[in-house]
């Protein structure tokens, strides 16, 4: 089925960004007439690999051979000369120019007096037709929808008659029909001998369209497989690595089960909340004192889900009710006023202010809620800060210490203290235990359990199945932008979670009781 000679061969390629090794001795190959998927979680090095291959990023070690020639591209133009066309994930094209120019620029048709616009527009129109796209090539690109713009980017690559076509997340803003139209075109390109590199975090699409796949994890290649030879569950476990091989030992001895019995009264309900093209409408109910864990791969929409619930991002559809009253969470501030606090996974950027002291960081949200003109009395402030610092064991125990001097774990605790000071009813945490040491992690896990025992509800995201199973009353699984299922956590196994992430909620159904919410 495959020609013997690979059209792309990367050997031992490494890429460094400053001191960070983004790609570590990766080998990768592509054959003509096949669709090859490159998969891995966010940050696994997919985009870096493409950039190395297309000359956007220079490599620090290894060799790249394209169509038998050893190459050292220094610009995308070099790569295009050898027949590599790329649709980059972040390529916005040029909204100020016409559709025709966006397709043809770099390969304009020239007549006796420079660019021949008529010929160029006709060529562009042909490329649009191949994609079944009915756009006026002379109209400005910026006047079209994002999905159409993305298809124009693909039309641009098609019009170049590439030997090697690279598509980085081409389907992220396309609807189902547009995706199948794209796949139809990819299949016909494969027939004509083009090598297609397809990158998507939608596993279903990878299995639908590709012949072969390469898995990346943490900048390393963890194997190349024929798609027909590897089970999805093995793909997922290779993508996520060792952390799925955890031991089934609950971290909090009497964590979930006991509490969930009492957590009958849901006070927070989301009905059909969703975002077009990103998060499929979902229902979720949260009971008082309930801990809900959210599982899913990076890029599955798990962060977007909790951001919708806490007013950080706005939904296109659905509604949220708190205490049976419909509320509109327009901003984090409006969510806070309803008792919903959100702590970002990106604490460096969206949370902690490094040049402020511990005390100032803790009091920030409380003061903001009170309004800046109504200062908290100093004594009250000191007591509050002291009590949280003791309760969370924040070190150093000096409230005036600058937060940037603290360890990651202690910064996370300061952030938690900030939201706890508001006494929210629902605390939403995006990966509260990522990147902190084991001891602090255990403390934060204990804290979540205690808070829940005292009636606060918690929704948290975690990449660690052990932690999810150990802490949660119920676990929601995100997959391809969809809340697949919300499971009661009684003796839920990590393997079961893995299976759902790989195959969807139908997988292994019957092992565990499913809640009726989805």
């Amino acid at each position, binding site marked *: 089925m495959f020609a013997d000679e690979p059209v792309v061969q990367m050997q031992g390629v490494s890429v460094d960004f400053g001191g960070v090794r983004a790609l570590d001795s990766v080998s990768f190959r592509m054959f003509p007439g096949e669709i090859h998927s490159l998969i891995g979680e966010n940050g696994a090095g997919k985009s870096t690999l493409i950039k190395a291959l297309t000359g956007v990023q220079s490599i620090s070690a290894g060799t790249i051979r394209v169509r038998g020639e050893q190459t050292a591209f220094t610009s*995308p133009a070099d790569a295009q000369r050898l027949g590599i066309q790329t649709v980059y994930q972040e*390529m916005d*094209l*040029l909204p*100020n120019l016409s559709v025709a120019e966006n397709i043809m620029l770099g390969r304009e048709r020239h007549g006796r007096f420079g660019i021949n616009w008529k010929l160029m527009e006709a060529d562009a129109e042909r490329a649009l037709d191949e994609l*079944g796209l009915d756009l*006026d090539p002379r109209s*400005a690109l910026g006047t079209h929808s994002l999905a159409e713009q993305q298809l124009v980017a693909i039309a*641009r690559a098609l019009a170049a008659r590439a030997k090697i076509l690279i598509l980085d997340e081409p389907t992220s803003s396309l609807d189902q029909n547009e995706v199948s139209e794209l796949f139809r*075109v990819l299949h016909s390109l494969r027939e004509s001998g083009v090598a297609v590199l397809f990158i998507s975090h939608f596993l279903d699409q990878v299995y639908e369209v590709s012949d072969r796949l390469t898995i990346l994890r943490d900048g390393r290649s963890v194997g190349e497989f024929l798609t027909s030879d590897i089970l999805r569950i093995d793909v997922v476990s290779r993508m996520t690595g060792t952390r799925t091989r955890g031991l089934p030992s609950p971290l909090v001895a009497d964590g979930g089960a006991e509490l969930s019995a009492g957590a009958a009264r849901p006070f927070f309900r989301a009905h059909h909340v969703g975002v077009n093209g990103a998060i499929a409408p979902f229902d979720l109910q949260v009971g008082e004192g309930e801990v809900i864990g959210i599982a899913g791969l990076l890029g599955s929409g798990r962060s977007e889900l909790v951001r919708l619930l806490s007013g950080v991002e706005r939904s296109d559809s659905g509604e949220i009710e708190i205490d049976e009253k419909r509320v509109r969470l327009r901003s984090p501030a409006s969510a806070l006023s309803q008792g919903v606090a959100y702590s970002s996974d990106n604490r460096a950027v969206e949370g902690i202010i490094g040049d402020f002291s511990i005390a100032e960081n803790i009091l920030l949200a409380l003061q903001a809620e009170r309004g800046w003109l109504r200062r908290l009395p100093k004594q009250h402030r000191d007591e509050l800060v002291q009590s949280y610092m003791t309760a969370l064991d924040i070190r150093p125990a000096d409230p005036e210490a600058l937060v940037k001097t603290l360890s990651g774990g202690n910064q996370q605790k300061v952030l938690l203290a900030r939201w706890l000071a508001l006494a929210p009813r629902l605390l939403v945490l995006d990966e509260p235990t990522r990147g902190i040491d084991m001891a602090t992690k255990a403390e934060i896990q204990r804290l979540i359990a205690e808070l829940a025992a005292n009636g606060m509800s918690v929704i948290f995201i975690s990449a660690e199945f052990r932690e999810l199973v150990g802490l949660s009353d119920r676990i929601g699984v995100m997959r391809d932008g969809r809340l697949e299922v919300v499971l009661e956590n009684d003796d839920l196994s990590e393997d079961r979670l893995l299976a759902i992430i790989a195959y969807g909620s139908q997988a292994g159904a019957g092992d565990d009781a499913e809640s009726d919410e989805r």
Partner: protein
Amino acid sequence: MTAAPTLERPLAQRAPRRTPRWQLRLSAWLPVLTTSAILLAMFITGQAVFGNFFTSRLISSLFLDNAYLIVLAVGMTYVILTGGIDLSVGAVVAFSGIFGAQLLQTGWPAFIVIPAIVVSGSLIGALIGVLVQVFEIQPFIASLAAMFLARGLAYVVSLQSIAITDPAVTWLERTRFQLGGGWFVTPTVIIAVLTVAVSVWVLQYTRFGRSVYAIGGNEQSARLMGLQVARTRIAVYVISGTCAGIAGLIFAAYTGSGYSLTGLGMELDAIAAVVIGGTILTGGSGYVIGSLFGVMVYGLIEISITYIGVDSWWTKIVVGGLLLVFVVLQRLLVARRKR
């Protein structure tokens, strides 16, 4: 090359729903149309108020008096289309002018001096281009440095005004080609109009020209499309510098001298003309023809103020007000396009 991929589906049947090009690009042309409308309104008002205003003589001298500014504005249009700015052009006009005057005075022949005047501008433009592209210095700062450099060099050449008597240079200004009906052009005006015509072609019908727009639209995307971003950006500043050199020549011929204090604030006049002509300061949208109209509006304001007989600084006030109107208009257009 491979054969085109065979497709199962026949090419889509297209409804003939082609709207005329002018309609498709209306939002891009709207600022230019507004400027030409203002220009027309000024002529009509002038004719109504002063009488004897909308005449071949006035329009001919409008071109003659502003030939240098047209050339400067054309060069500036390239730079602004990429999202940059060139503050050096006024100082370059002074430097190239006095440099040329000094060379002529020392006895160099005009056929060497005239190219030297233009090339001195190109070199300063190249310096800015390299600073901006290679050393990633803000265009504002890079061209500000070049402005001080050029002005300083002008002082070094001479603090006094140097008269130009070379017949070749004065010919540029003094020759009046009569076109009949009171219309006339000078070689300087021909140079200015040629600059506009060549630039219209370059920007519309060459890859280089479209790359200028592409960089102004989104530099990163332009690079990923395989366009020559670095080369284009440096070239844009070289063009602006060259235009400043040509303007220096025209201005020296116009005033019959080189003087190190000429052209103070002239770069701002050029920028104002470009903006009034509808080019957006963030880049990617605008037309050279608009800049020509911008200069015409500017010149007409000056003339009108003289006709009215109030002090000449009223020109600045009116230009300032017009600039504000245009910047606000652009904001509205950009906001509408983003919607």
